[in-house]
């Protein structure tokens, strides 16, 4: 079992879960438009979502566009 921090809250995941699989559990717009992911303060490009697995203890931030500015 892997436990990550997702937007500041602990989240247990199956070992080897990828960024793409994590996002499937969230209500993310089609093709991830307006959405971005950082793992341990490094941006994971959309093109790498399928290939990037989340290690135990990873600090994951998933952000989405909101009204602002």
């Amino acid at each position, binding site marked *: 079992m892997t436990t990550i921090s997702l937007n500041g809250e602990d989240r247990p995941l199956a070992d080897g879960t990828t960024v793409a699989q994590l996002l499937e559990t969230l*209500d*993310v717009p089609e093709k991830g438009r307006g959405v971005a992911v950082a793992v341990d303060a490094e941006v994971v490009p959309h093109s790498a979502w399928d290939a990037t697995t989340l290690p135990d203890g990873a600090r994951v931030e998933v*952000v*989405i566009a909101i*009204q602002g*500015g």
Partner: protein
Amino acid sequence: MATTAAAPLTIAGRDFTSRLILGTGGFPSLDLLESAIATTETDMVTVALRRIDAAGRTGLVEVLDRTGVHVLPNTAGCFTARDAVLTAKLAREAFQTEWIKLEVIGDERTLLPDAVELVAAAEQLVADGFIVLPYTTDDPVLARRLEDVGCAAVMPLGSPIGSGMGIRNPYNLALIVERAGVPVILDAGVGTASDATLALELGCDAVLTASAISRAEDPVAMARAIKLAVEAGALARGAGRIPRRLYAEASTTPEGLPHFGA
């Protein structure tokens, strides 16, 4: 750069037909936001990024895609260069754009920019290929520093964000405009239409406003007012106003005035 009504606004090689950039913050509904975008005929709107669990599915992206406007993501809420740079990189990924409205705030109560962190972040982002539009104070020296590190425009405030206090120091704005080699965009403080007109009359190339429209009692009516105000200001700037005088100058010639005797 001097504003002329005839020439289109160009920032970093991109032409804009509208000199009004709309902030999306504060609109009570997405329908009103979409109406305001249509009414202002703006080419570009700002968005912010927040954690998805707090934001939920907003529908905002769908509205923006439908209206076809350029998206200018911001780094609102960042207090350090480090956070602002990382947020800009997330925004680049989220919207596949190099454009970023850089905000690095130094004080929660006034939301005034932190000059030191702002310049540091701008420098890093420019080096990383971003087109950086920094929200800055109305300090002409800081504006010059931001231009020197490669920012594509400078965006001085008229007064604090959301204050609606208009342009508190027109003299400073005029100094920024006079020396700037990049577009100058008034970025905060607009409360009503006349504030936007004044910005253009002072030589600003564009105005960015959110609250003045989104928090007005009738946002769509105010959107139209500010659109027209921006156009009026650009026209007036290009037309060349008369000098201010202490005393009157008659508009009617005294020649040929009849004399009626004593």
